[in-house]
């Protein structure tokens, strides 16, 4: 538009020109573009049935889904280490190493991440309530980092004031409390940058009275702002967009499936989880007796909860954020439920 000064000039004088009857004739004789714009009798539908296979959700399953890598590559993040029965005085040692990594988040799209142990999100940390958690943290990244755990612990173990500079290390040690699903993340400033770059993960504290045996899964919801404009370009669970659309998660009909769901999406106020064709029970923060029966939950940044589902049918069950935009930017997958 702004390119043609002449055109702008004429646009300004257009009311005068419109008086000329010639104008109408020209518009009719204006070629194919004019016909497409005005001739509603030949209104075009822009798709046919055969096109549907190439478009939409039908194209976003299996090999059609644009996701990085082969099957089972995210198993370490999806399947948490097993819950251990309560035993007084037990130490749970972990080692987390902060590194700068170029990670592939969607096919051919690379993100300059800051990671714990090389992945975004970081590894799942799990302990039983009152286990002594001993996390050795080594900073091999290029910036100062910390680990801030959610939970109940001494403030000098909180990862806020004890900044670990590159090359340095620190061991966090505290009893794991309370039982529930928590988080850990870097608390260096600028906070937004340190979290968004990928320094976060799920922290499960199992109750002393164990939960019922189940097929357990961890979903950490996140996003990536790849062009630095303060808005996410890709959304995922466990770090790769559309990964579980390409490799659906296999479970059995009727078995208890427990999902530890946490939201670490930066920039957006909320994220959400919606399950298709069935309902689940949701326990906010994985604490207390307050279970909700629903198919959609919403979490703000840092919120998390435990959900349990027993599929009533077999088949392909979609799950995704119920923000359509997030869904279509990668936060979408399937459960493949077998008999």
């Amino acid at each position, binding site marked *: 538009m702004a390119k043609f000064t002449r055109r702008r000039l004429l646009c300004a004088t257009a009311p005068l020109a419109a008086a000329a009857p*010639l*104008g109408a004739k020209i518009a009719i*004789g204006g070629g194919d573009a004019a016909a497409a714009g005005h001739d509603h009798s030949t209104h*075009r539908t822009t798709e046919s049935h055969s096109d549907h296979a*190439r478009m939409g959700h039908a194209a976003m399953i299996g090999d059609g889904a644009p996701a990085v890598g082969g099957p089972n590559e995210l198993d370490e993040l999806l399947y948490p280490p097993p819950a251990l029965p309560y035993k007084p005085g037990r130490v749970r040692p972990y080692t987390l190493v902060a590194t700068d990594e170029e990670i592939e988040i969607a096919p*051919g799209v690379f993100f300059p991440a800051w990671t714990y142990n090389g992945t975004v999100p970081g590894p799942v940390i799990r302990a039983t309530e009152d286990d002594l958690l001993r996390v050795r943290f080594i900073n091999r990244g290029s910036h100062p980092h910390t680990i801030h755990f959610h939970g109940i612990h001494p403030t000098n173990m909180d990862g806020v004031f004890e900044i670990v500079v590159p090359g340095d290390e620190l061991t966090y040690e505290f009893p794991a409390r309370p039982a529930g699903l928590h988080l850990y993340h870097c608390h260096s400033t600028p906070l937004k940058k340190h979290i968004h770059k990928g320094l976060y993960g799920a922290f499960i504290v199992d109750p002393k009275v164990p939960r019922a045996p189940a097929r357990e899964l961890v979903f950490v919801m996140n996003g990536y702002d790849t*062009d630095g404009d303060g808005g996410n370009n890709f959304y995922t669970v466990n770090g790769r967009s559309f990964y579980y659309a390409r490799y659906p998660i296999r479970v059995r009909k009727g078995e208890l499936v427990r999902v530890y769901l946490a939201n670490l999406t930066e920039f957006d106020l909320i994220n959400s989880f919606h399950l298709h064709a069935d309902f689940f029970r949701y326990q906010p923060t994985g604490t207390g007796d307050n279970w909700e029966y629903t198919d959609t939950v919403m979490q703000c940044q840092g919120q998390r909860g435990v959900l349990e589902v027993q599929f009533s049918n077999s088949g392909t069950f979609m799950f995704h954020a119920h923000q359509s935009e997030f869904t279509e930017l990668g936060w979408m997958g399937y459960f493949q439920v077998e008999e």
Partner: protein
Amino acid sequence: MEAPTAVGGGVAWRLWALVPIVLLALAVAVVVSQGDRVVDLLGGTPPPADEFDVRRVEFREGEIRIEVRNPQRDDLTIASVTVDDAIVPFTLDGPATLGRLRTSTIVVPYAWVEDEPIAVGVTSSTGIETVEEIPAAVLTPQPSARGFFGYGLIGLLVGVVPVALGLLWLPSLRRADARWLAAFMALTAGLLTFLGIEALAEALELQAALPSALGGPGLVLLGVAASALGMTFLSARLSRGKTGMTGLALALLVAVGIGVHNLGEGLAIGTSFSTGELQLGAFLVIGFMVHNLTEGLGIAAPASGARVTVWQLIGLALIAGAPAILGTWLGGYAARGTL
């Protein structure tokens, strides 16, 4: 005795005059091959912008075609494509990794909605997203006999008709007083000066939108120089060594100049129709018609003193007006973002 020495010295000096040029060429070659190292001495070179130049977005039945070009020196890789902020499957007609100024066409199967705004995004392997917003999705006209005729008709209306009408003033000019004739000649000179200044200003404004690799102001000045040289050459040919040009020759010269100008007008009109700015196109047509009537007068004025046949007049009208037809065809079918 002195003369041969002077000539010999002249040759030597002429050769010596080449030395700086040869040395400059060598220096340039060194900088071209080692320039990066020189720049590196300064430190802190920013990363490439990694933005695509979206040259053309075509809407077909159930399909969007996006032509992109790499405007920067470093390679640029097409990694992900979005339509309205949703990741979509796509195929490439061309390479995924584009060298400097290389283009590729992205083909997206998509059920776009007619007449509604739409945005397409192309994300590089470094995660930078280039978004192109289209005000209204309209089926891109494909070449057809009807459309071809339509564009030709518009070109005829804008170019040939008003110039021919303007030429009809010739008999009146012949009978007019010498003072009036001088006044009309002055009008012609003024008109051409105005066109020249306006065209130059418009060209300079347009070049600002071009990728820097394509030239910039230098390109415009080169074009000006080329056309000035061309016109001078034509003028010399037409006057054939005589002291002045005949009236008809001058009229021909003016007609050629106006013809080149009308080619640009035709381009503007054709582009405006093909990009769906239909109303604007119709007003543009009317505006150009009124405006171009004076061009006919401009050609008629110098010819008024000479004997001119009807065929010569028709020829003049075609030389000045027919390029508009060529322009609408080019603008209508080859419309590019850079035109």
